[in-house]
């Protein structure tokens, strides 16, 4: 497939400085700005964190419906209206998609899993152990206390909660294809990207206040490895409180924080679709 050059208008945040006479940020030097970055369909991948939809239907736990029904409806909207069209166009243009599936059992059934895991094993073959610290199991003595908040907040433990989900599968519109990549560890993602010369990641998925940032393969794992990460703002969603739902303040603040610390840029999927369209026009430069 022909390699296309994409010019993407990415939003970054310039930290600027403080005017210590007032103790206030200098609004002239600080703020969001757009920077055009150039990348190609070959050196770029789209990642999706935890895109499977969990149906919450087990009887007896209706008290949690408020929290999950709100979340689920917004997630479905993002998937169908934003992620699915992006995947469709990106696949046509030859951009590869990696599914971050940490915690999903079905990952092992994907035809590419073994290949990717072998790449990861090879990448680590000559490296020393990364840490010498105690495993979480060493905290068995305070297991009851550690579960306290879940009992207070959710009414059961995290593992019990997963039992109340009746299904965990990707909607048809974004389900992984045999040629896609799947990963559950950061090293798996990094190994397959290195193998294919990929250094730019367009990140989508769920949720912006948790796994998208902190789970293996998420922003905070990939950015320190040198990847240029761009979050596709309309293809991510976050849990919200009733008082933050208007304007999706939690999602907005999480993205603003990452911009502020220089971890990522932000883009709307429409801008990527437009860049793909422009790159595909006759006479446009390809490499």
């Amino acid at each position: 497939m022909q390699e296309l050059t994409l010019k993407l208008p990415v939003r970054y945040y310039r930290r600027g400085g403080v005017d210590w006479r007032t103790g206030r940020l200098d609004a002239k030097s600080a703020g969001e700005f757009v920077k055009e970055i150039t990348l190609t369909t070959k050196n770029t991948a789209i990642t999706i964190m935890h895109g499977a939809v969990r149906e919450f239907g087990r009887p007896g736990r209706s008290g949690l419906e408020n929290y999950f029904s709100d979340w689920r409806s917004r997630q479905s909207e993002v998937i169908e209206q934003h992620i699915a069209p992006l995947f469709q166009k990106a696949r046509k243009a030859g951009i590869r998609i990696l599914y971050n599936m940490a915690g999903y059992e079905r990952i092992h059934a994907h035809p590419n899993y073994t290949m990717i895991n072998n790449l990861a094993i090879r990448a680590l073959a000559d490296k020393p152990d990364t840490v010498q610290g105690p495993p979480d199991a060493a905290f068995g003595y305070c297991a009851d206390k550690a579960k306290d908040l879940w009992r207070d907040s959710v009414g059961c433990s995290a593992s019990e909660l997963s039992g109340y989900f009746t299904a965990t599968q990707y909607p048809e519109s974004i389900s992984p294809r045999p040629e896609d990549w799947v990963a559950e560890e950061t090293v798996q993602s990094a190994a397959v990207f290195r193998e294919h010369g990929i250094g730019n990641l367009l990140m989508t998925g769920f949720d912006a206040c948790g796994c998208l940032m902190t789970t293996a393969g998420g922003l905070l794992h990939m950015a320190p490895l040198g990847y240029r990460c761009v979050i596709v703002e309309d293809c991510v969603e976050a849990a919200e409180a009733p008082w933050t739902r208007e304007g999706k303040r939690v999602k907005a603040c999480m993205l603003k924080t990452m911009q502020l610390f220089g971890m990522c840029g932000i883009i709307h999927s429409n801008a990527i679709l437009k860049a793909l369209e422009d790159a595909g026009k006759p006479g446009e430069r390809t490499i």
Partner: protein
Amino acid sequence: MSANISFQARYYLREKMDHAYKKVAVNSASTALLLRHTSNLGFDQEKFKRANLLGMDMYANPLGAGRYPDGHDKRYSDLSFKKESPYAKVLAMFENIPRMRKIIEEEIVPLVKAARKAGIRIMYVIDGWEAACKYPQWHELNRKVTALGPDCLPHVDGAWRKELEDEIFMPNFQEALAELSRVIDIAPPLEPLPDDWIVTNHYQAKYLLSANKISDVLHAGFDTNFGMFYSIAGIHRFCRTTRNFILRDCTTALERTDTVQQEQLKETSLWVMEAALRCYSASGKEIAREINSPIRA
């Protein structure tokens, strides 16, 4: 020494989709107070002024209440940068320095004093600074627990990053930050005692917590939205191990021009830690008051 301390904890009740409160009790022998990035940035005003660092009094604003006499232990960092120094530019990017100093002086110092009195262990997290090397207890720990970190994973060429950082932070940002990290240390009024713990990553923190059977951790420090949340010893690393309490009045976030007015990034980060990361939040002032209460005394 062991004492039971009870205080009010806040959490997010998903069923009601609102905050809820409950009284909890911790035992000082199984509790640690974790101070994250409680640095000397913003302290030592005399040196700043003498060096004409920023060409003005950095603490002329009302947030900068409180001063420390000059000439304290020279072990603490020397922030006497030249006016044109890149350090000065780096410092100017941390708009929360005055807030951090105020919180250290007014909230964290009294809490640490009370915690020591009750027998609560103090742990300093200072990842990213070289200052850890100055403390003998860190060397001893580092011999036992080392973290080689992400260097072991396949990297890609991140040359683009320098160009971006020059633009969004300042020219030669990493070099300036590296220089700064050499002189940052723990804030003077929070000077560690020989038996305090100094850690530079969560592996070391967890080693000490589990070896000492610590089950409750009180989290204070900066920044609410990054260091406390996401760093190598960030709170998300602890949410599967201990019971965690974020001290709402002992932390502040680095804010932006569009969030600083209402400290939105701090408030949102607190909510996310309560609702998604399985943490309680509490008031450091209340805990200190409880420890110092006449009945207990």
